[in-house]
């Protein structure tokens, strides 16, 4: 190597050394943080996804900070009175970390699914419980009951839920007799597409527990939802009952209006038998927690009341 090249290299090394110092600084910065102490019964908790917020309220631990809701922001109407004092922490996908730090929580509940990237920062701020996913309400309930030390409360909630479900199952059986179990589809009609939530989804899992069956086309489908591009794929969602999330905006309502006029839609079993029931999207899809499940059961009771009255 020529000497000139060597000198150039040496000059080049200087800024590089400065940059090289950054990883060292980084390591020092990381070494300094120690695991914050985890209290046995956390009081000031922060919940970073909707299902955790719902579940915390159900367990009687009102969060001091929550993320914005997906619909009717800032907070779903059914949680508004409980969360009147809670701070808003921005979007579920990108919560405001400084606000979380300022709240000095003694527990943060987040999900690996959404917050894996910021998990190291979160756990530097407060003890962190990272749930694997966000839509298994029972798993959320059990995990949170354990970290919050509210197992008794969780068990009584599960008991109430089980007995309500048993009542509803019996009622469904009685109402539909030999035709029971009915096949079901949980639909979300949006401006540009139709979504069909399947058995593994939040709403779908509750319907399965109630004894509803899924059409053969989607039975055993691993995904949470099916997206239909156009009317031609409508037969793929054919079922005895449609629970339809209330279209949330004008384009979606317009889409639904057009769909109802379409012959392929009119040939679907649920439509022919007049069993399309609009339900609250917050309870049926967005809440992700056990309070949302109770909301679903209320809706189903109301639906049965109506069908029985008309029968």
């Amino acid at each position, binding site marked *: 190597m020529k000497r000139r090249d060597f000198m150039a290299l040496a000059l*080049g090394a200087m800024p590089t050394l400065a*940059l090289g110092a950054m990883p060292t600084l*980084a390591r020092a910065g*990381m070494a300094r943080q120690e695991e914050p102490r985890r209290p046995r019964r956390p009081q000031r908790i922060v919940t970073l996804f909707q299902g955790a917020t719902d579940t915390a309220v159900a367990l009687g631990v009102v969060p001091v900070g929550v993320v914005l809701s997906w619909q009717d922001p800032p907070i779903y109407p059914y949680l508004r009175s409980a969360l009147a004092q809670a701070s808003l922490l921005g979007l579920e*996908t*990108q919560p405001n*970390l400084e606000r979380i730090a300022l709240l000095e929580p003694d527990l943060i509940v987040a999900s690996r699914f959404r917050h894996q990237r910021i998990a190291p920062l979160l756990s530097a701020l407060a003890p962190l419980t990272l749930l694997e996913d966000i839509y298994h309400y029972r798993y959320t309930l059990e995990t949170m009951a354990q970290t919050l030390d509210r197992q008794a409360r969780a068990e009584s909630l599960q008991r109430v839920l089980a007995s309500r479900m048993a009542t509803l199952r019996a009622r469904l059986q009685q109402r539909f007799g030999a035709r029971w179990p009915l096949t079901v589809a949980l639909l979300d009609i949006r401006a540009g597409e139709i979504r069909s939530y399947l058995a593994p989804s939040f709403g779908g899992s509750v319907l399965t527990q109630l004894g509803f069956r899924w059409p053969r086309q989607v039975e055993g489908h691993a995904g949470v*939802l099916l997206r239909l591009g156009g009317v031609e794929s409508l037969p793929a969602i054919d079922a005895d009952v449609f629970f339809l999330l209330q279209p949330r905006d004008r384009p979606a309502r317009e889409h639904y209006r057009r769909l109802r006029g379409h012959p392929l839609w009119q040939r679907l079993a649920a439509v022919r038998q007049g069993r399309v029931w609009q339900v609250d999207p917050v309870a049926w899809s967005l809440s992700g927690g056990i309070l949302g499940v109770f909301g679903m059961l209320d809706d189903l009771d109301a639906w049965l009341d109506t069908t029985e009255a008309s029968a």
Partner: protein
Amino acid sequence: MGEARVLRLGRFSRVVAWRAWCRVVAALLVVLLILLASLALGEAALSAPQWLAALRSPDSGAGLILWQLRLPRTLLGALVGAALALSGWLLQQVMRNPLASPDTLGVTAGAATLAVGYLAFLAADVGTAWMPLAAALGALLAVLLVMLAAWRGGTTPLRLVLMGIGLSTLLSAVTTFVLVSSPLTTTLSAYVWLTGSVYGGNWSDVGWLAACFGVALVVLMPWVRLALLAPLDDGLAVGIGVRVQWTRTLLILLAAGLAGIAVAWGGAMAFVGLVAPHVARRLLRQPGAAQIAMAVVVGAGMTMAADLAGRLLFPPLDLPAGLFVAAIGTPFFLGLMMKQAR
């Protein structure tokens, strides 16, 4: 060149444009001010004494905000901007085209395709930790593909640009397809990535990006002279003894690597790579080491300012810096161009 002086160290000598470097230092001071502002401002309002105390005690609550939240993310923004600006400067030299940027060669599109694909198909099982690798890989693959397609016993800038734009368009289509067909939940994080954001940057991100940037700089250093000659006509360059094809390939790969690592951690905010070199050129006419340094400083300053704006302007929302790179960068850029036109 009355403002240039010669620096001699034994047999090593360099022409140093002192005036130009003074301007670079001035720009650096502005960037340091932005850094200070990024550290001082935020959701948690700290008084000056509180702030100083927090600076000294990284373990306190306020110290945590400074040392774990504000500083790493600001540095990450600075590094992303610096790498993109350097990449853009190199490409504009090599392509002899003021509109060249990491976008033009398909770097961003390649990174985006693989990053979004990773989010859609792998993130659920593997976690998001390897996403930077996917993005960097995508960037490099895209550039290699462009070079391969444009190679006909050598490349010309025009062929490269055309191939790059073509491949970018193709890859954008693939990205859109993946976005449309992937579950709704990944779509959200993908959009944030596509806008470009240093949200949630931590020290390990900073360390990795700094190390990669450092390696790229070391590799680049001996070849900067050739980058300065790149705008010359091929025949002329050959005449003064430049290995044109070899140099071009090397510099393009370096630029792609720089943009790739920047995009890997900062998301697709390649606009910095287009604008920062122009701003640097307006501030410093003479191409040279000082102009490169200026581009790097401007790029770092732009992303830092954009991230600060994203953090402060719409609380409690923490918006992606990429939004504000465009929102702040474009008027500044247009202003400079108009001033020059007059």
